[in-house]
């Protein structure tokens, strides 16, 4: 339940708060000046120089203390981010120095010989996340569009609530369900027909043991649907009704109104929502670790086991056999961190732009 729309996507309604000077001078002195609201002449308050307010404010020890305390608490987060990044770099330094940039595209991972290349994990992380997006995006957009545009009013709250509940299920419970329900289901009902029809393509080749990229992708998809759906829904709700009305007024069918007027208007935000889902998928650990098979190998087939960066850290970090191995784990963490930070930052910027009400740029995308 981490996401009642606003909770997790965190889009403040009023974007600008006021500084102290404005707070007092702005609000108090301009209030009676609106001619429309004050038909009778209200004696204008004596103009108060801002400086006087400042001195008044400055003398209150409680205010200064309060502000200082809050500022100190607020500084914890930036500090956390900086130390996190610094410690990852410091921890990874031996590995960075030893392997350099080829770390990300070589695929030998041999803790005994002390040779490390993270390509299979990076590949597995990207492949599983893309597979998850492929499944989750239609589902999530379907949920968002249905809820904002088509569903009967009484159904809206229940469906939104149930989809949000998906986000409340702990990752490890998804993993448990994946091992004991999803994988047996795939083995008996999904993979045989898949292999019969598409087995000749490299995408579905090889023997299926259960733990596989496919299982990881499906679990990830279920996990990110609620995120994408919740943000997309907020974005679609932020589209002005006039867009819809204009399209309908020109004779568009309801679907045409949605597809040609509403969705393009919110496009930047919808892309942001999808990227946010991608960010979640990239960093998801437990459920993926439990079903993806954890094999250091690059295989095009979705039926084969794979590995992800997060899974590698979960499995090997506390069992690192040498300092270099540990440094390599740090470097994997660093790569994962940097990638998710970039992905999340992009998503936020896109969503902010729409949510702030300036959706002007959305056409450019």
């Amino acid at each position, binding site marked *: *339940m*981490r996401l009642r729309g606003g*909770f997790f996507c965190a889009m403040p309604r009023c974007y600008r708060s006021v500084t102290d000077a404005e707070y007092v001078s702005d609000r108090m002195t301009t209030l009676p000046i609106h001619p429309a609201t004050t038909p009778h002449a209200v004696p204008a308050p004596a103009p108060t120089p801002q400086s006087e307010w400042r001195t008044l404010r400055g003398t209150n020890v409680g205010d200064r203390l309060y502000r200082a*305390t809050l500022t100190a608490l607020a500084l914890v987060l*930036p500090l956390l981010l900086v130390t996190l990044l610094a410690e*990852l770099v410091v921890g990874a330094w031996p590995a960075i120095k030893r392997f350099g940039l080829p770390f990300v595209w070589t695929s030998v991972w041999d803790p005994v010989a002390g040779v490390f290349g993270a390509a299979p994990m990076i590949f597995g992380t990207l492949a599983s996340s893309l597979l998850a997006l492929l499944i989750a995006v239609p589902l999530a*957009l379907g949920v968002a569009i249905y809820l904002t545009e088509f569903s009967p009013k009484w159904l809206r709250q229940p469906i939104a609530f149930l989809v949000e509940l998906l986000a409340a299920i702990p990752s490890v419970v998804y993993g448990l369900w994946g091992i004991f329900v999803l994988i047996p289901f795939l083995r008996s009902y999904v993979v045989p027909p898949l292999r019969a029809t598409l087995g000749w393509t490299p995408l579905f080749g090889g023997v299926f043991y259960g733990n596989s990229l496919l299982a990881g992708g499906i679990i990830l998809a279920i996990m990110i649907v609620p995120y994408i759906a919740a943000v997309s829904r907020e974005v679609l709700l932020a589209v002005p009704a006039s867009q819809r009305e204009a399209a309908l007024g020109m004779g568009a069918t309801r679907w045409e109104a949605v597809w040609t007027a509403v969705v393009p208007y919110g496009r930047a935000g919808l892309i942001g929502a999808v990227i946010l889902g991608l960010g979640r998928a990239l960093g998801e650990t437990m459920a993926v670790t439990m079903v993806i098979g954890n094999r250091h190998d690059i295989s095009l087939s979705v039926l084969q086991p794979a590995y992800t960066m997060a899974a590698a850290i979960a499995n090997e970090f506390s069992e690192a056999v040498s300092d270099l191995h540990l440094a390599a784990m740090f470097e994997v*963490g660093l790569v994962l961190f940097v990638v998710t930070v970039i992905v999340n930052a992009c998503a936020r910027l896109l969503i902010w732009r729409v949510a702030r009400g300036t959706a002007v740029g959305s056409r450019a995308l």
Partner: protein
Amino acid sequence: MSGRSLRRHVTSGLMTGLVAVLSFTAVLALVLILGDLIAKGASSLNWDFFTKNPVPAGQSGGGVANAIVGTGIIVGLAALIGLPIGIGTGLYLAEYGSGRLGWIVRFVADVLNGTPSIVIGIFAWTWLVRPMGGYSALAGSVALAALMIPMIARTTEEMVRLVPHSLREAALALGYPRWRTSLRVVARTALAGIVTGCLVGVARIAGETAPLLFTALGNLNFSTSVTQPMQTLPHQIYEYASGPFEEWHRLAWASALVLMSLVLLLGVTARWAIRQRHGAAR
């Protein structure tokens, strides 16, 4: 109706049906997972499950009392560390957050919100496990707190912003200093919302496993010492699910059901709390 118009209306109907089907598919996934949890977990819930500690591998019986208590301690400690910082940050953002620092903090909170929890685990490992020379429940709590702060901060900010300006103005006009206005009037009005945000935050971290793997580690025995490794429900589920024994799998399902109920309870309470307060506003 001309052919073209008919085709357009048929398309519209079909697509409406399609998005409805997609929505119900998403709901179906939830129903399936919850159904399996109850079907496979409920039968193993009994008195022993809640009161006994795990028995050695291969034997039957035993419970997860140590994990339940461990989850309580670790999550409670995390809340103790994380809530004040999170709420303080949220108040800062709402009250003074219009400047550059506010922008930075807001952005950092959003970025950290999306940071993989396993990376936060590495953070706690470097700062607590390595210097202290061993895995500890405290390190686990710190990791969970770090996960929680950005979330709480953003919800608190939003809730405080919902408070009408007239309330502040009234308090200031009565001569309240700003800090008292903020705490006694504004924060108090937004209290239900803030509590909701906290409950949601706690619910979220209660189910986290990844940051505990190399901080709190897990423990086969009953332990209440925060400087020692401690077992938690999510970690117990992970161990039992990955193990080879039927008995373990049975206990894993039951633990998952308990964990899920705990998380849902927190979440539903939170939802109920916000309905009470902001039902009309939202």
